[in-house]
């Protein structure tokens, strides 16, 4: 029999007979074999590394619990992921033109970047907004800006993602008001607001109010949407920024899922049924340089979420168990040095996102460490996705890496590390308590500092930065600049809106908002009334701040 000729003794025998003698003569490279997050990686993975795994319970079938292999039964054979490039620059006119350009290039969903003042709930004419208007995204202060932003784009036909958090309820209301003006029923609208305040306290730091009223506003949007805008994703629970702030992959996974658990808890405390809102929660993860670690992270994320929703919260609807996620390649991994190299980094990261089973994907542009993406750079980034989708062949089969000893073992390892953090956060009394104690913030700052040290000591390589450095490099790509006139034009428009609106109606809507903020009533209708009366973002924020107060951080470094 052929089998009897197979050498017995498994791994121990191989190590002794084959590996041992070889390694003596040819030692391995003198580097740390570990992921970018410093997770040690073994020389070889074999069946004993996946011994504890049960195929049906742990890996299973696509579109079925625990969704390790993906949330849809056919994955990309049915429909490719949504190619969604984040865009926002200057005033509403510029971003509207970029949206139309991207749709013409074959992009399938819109994704809106707002400028910093808007993200912080400040109007373009606020003194703190000086120099920032339209720089990192589009400036939106009133419904008028939103009308221009989506001019000529039929809101009933596109899906729109809006990266907005502290003032999410207001920006969301502005989008709904534009839909009303276009005559599109709210039930037909599809899209996402990020609306994830926990990761703001943890990582991105764009907050307005303290945690409690912030969570109330988020639950208000969940409750309102469940009835009025059923196809809308009301929170995009985001690990992206946690990773960008310097976390490891396992920390990103853990803190993001802990945030998600916090939102579900808050919804249940409001009296909502878990299956009434959990299906509309979606996720947003980072895809960094370490290829297999990222794939494992996404597979582990789905498995943990499914088990938490079913086990911890008793969700019955399979759609509540499914972790659907947007992914963006890691901006923090890109280098200002030799920026063309970023195209390659992004391609590898995007491939990991696809092999990890993402539902939508943004690929970063090569010039993002230097400026906002130019049209040329953003086109290369979008083409990268199209090449992965239609040339590489990876979309032909579902979860192609399942069953790899390495990938399955790494998936389990990520799950284990994340669960250990989640348990720690549970013991602290939940994510709000953990944030107040600065726990995730401190863990991330530690990881960021440790990584920086490794880079400076040459223990981690960044090509073009600490190895293969080019002398006297000239930036070979054209950079996009936002002209200062944008700020002036935007301020002029805001002044015009304030002058021409019905001032009395605006004031009365704002008073009503403050009054409702003192009650426990859902604030979405009052916010919508303010929006329709052309109140500004900051006026609405101030109206609520009167009741809610402002958040202040104790910084740790």
């Amino acid at each position, binding site marked *: 029999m052929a089998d009897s000729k197979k050498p017995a003794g498994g791994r121990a025998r191989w190590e002794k007979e084959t590996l041992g003698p070889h390694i003596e003569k040819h030692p391995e490279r003198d580097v740390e074999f570990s992921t970018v997050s410093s997770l040690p990686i073994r020389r070889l993975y074999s069946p004993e590394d996946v011994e504890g795994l049960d195929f049906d319970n742990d890996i299973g079938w696509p579109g079925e619990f625990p969704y390790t292999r993906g949330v849809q039964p056919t994955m990309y054979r049915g429909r490719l992921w949504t190619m969604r490039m984040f865009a926002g620059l200057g005033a509403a006119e510029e971003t509207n033109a970029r949206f139309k350009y991207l749709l013409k290039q074959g992009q399938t969903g819109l994704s809106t970047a707002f400028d*910093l*003042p808007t*993200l*912080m709930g*400040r109007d373009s004419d606020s*003194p*703190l*907004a*000086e*120099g*920032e208007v339209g*720089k*990192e995204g589009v400036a939106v202060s009133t419904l008028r800006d939103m009308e221009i932003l989506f001019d000529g784009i039929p809101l009933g036909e596109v899906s729109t993602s809006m990266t907005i958090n502290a003032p999410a309820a207001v920006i969301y209301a502005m989008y709904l008001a534009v839909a009303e003006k276009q005559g599109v029923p709210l039930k037909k609208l599809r899209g996402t607001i990020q609306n994830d305040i926990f990761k*703001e306290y943890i990582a*991105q*730091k*764009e907050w307005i109010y303290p945690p409690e009223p912030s969570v109330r506003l988020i639950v208000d949007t969940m409750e309102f949407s469940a009835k009025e805008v059923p196809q809308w994703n009301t929170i995009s629970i985001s690990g992206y920024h946690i990773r*960008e*702030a*310097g976390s490891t992959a396992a920390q990103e996974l853990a803190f993001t899922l802990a945030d998600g658990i916090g939102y579900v808890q808050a919804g249940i405390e409001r009296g909502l049924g878990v299956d009434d809102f959990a299906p509309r929660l979606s996720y947003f993860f980072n895809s960094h340089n370490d290829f297999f670690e990222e794939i494992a992270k996404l597979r582990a994320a789905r498995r943990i979420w499914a088990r938490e929703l079913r086990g911890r919260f008793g969700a019955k609807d399979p759609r509540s168990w499914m972790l659907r996620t947007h992914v963006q390649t890691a901006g*923090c991994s890109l*280098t*200002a*040095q030799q920026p063309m190299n970023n195209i390659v980094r992004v391609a590898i990261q995007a491939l990991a996102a696809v092999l990890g089973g993402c539902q939508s994907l943004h690929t970063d542009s090569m010039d993002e*460490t*230097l*400026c*906002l993406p130019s049209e040329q750079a953003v086109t290369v980034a979008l083409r990268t996705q199209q090449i992965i989708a239609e040339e590489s062949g990876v979309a032909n089969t579902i979860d192609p890496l399942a069953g790899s000893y390495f990938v399955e073992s790494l998936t389990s390892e990520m799950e284990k590390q994340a669960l250990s953090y989640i348990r720690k956060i549970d013991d602290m009394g939940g994510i709000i308590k953990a944030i107040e104690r600065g726990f995730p913030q401190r863990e991330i*700052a530690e990881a*960021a*500092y440790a990584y*920086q040290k490794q*880079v*400076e000591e040459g223990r981690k390589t*960044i090509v073009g*930065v*600490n190895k293969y450095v080019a002398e006297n490099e000239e*930036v070979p790509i054209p*950079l996009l*600049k*936002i002209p200062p006139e944008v700020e002036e034009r935007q301020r002029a428009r805001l002044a015009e809106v304030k002058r021409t609106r019905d001032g009395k109606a605006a004031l009365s809507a704002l008073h009503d908002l403050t009054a409702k903020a003192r009650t426990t009533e859902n604030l979405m209708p009052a916010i919508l009334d303010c929006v329709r009366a052309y109140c500004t973002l900051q006026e609405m924020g101030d109206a609520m701040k009167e009741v809610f107060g402002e958040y202040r*951080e*104790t*910084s740790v*470094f």
Partner: protein
Amino acid sequence: MAQTRMRLLIGKVGLDGHDRGAKIIARALRDAGYEVIYTGLHQTAEQVAATAIQEDVDAVGLSILSGAHNTLFPKVIKLLSEKGAGDIVVFGGGIIPDDDIPGLLAAGVAKIFTPGTPTSDVIKFLEEEVAPKRANAR
């Protein structure tokens, strides 16, 4: 008398919340033996200038990743010199295009560090550019 340790203020001006770089620099400089104060986020130029004077620092390092550098750097420098603290060295880092650097240097910024700079370069700068000024002043 032994010379006191160099005092530094690491600041975040404006609405920009990207604090990974500022915190890493603050920590690296503290580990290198300097006295480091970090302003925390969302400070106005006025607040940063006032803190710098009140804390009697030798240098202020500003971290700006929001694209507002051409507005905010000159503003802090102007405020410092108006308050008679023009001797405080201002340096900075962040997402700052090469084309903007000459203008910032002309406006009085002592040095701009762009992404990928090792923290040891910042320490070298402080020792070579800021330390001698302190020796002269005392």
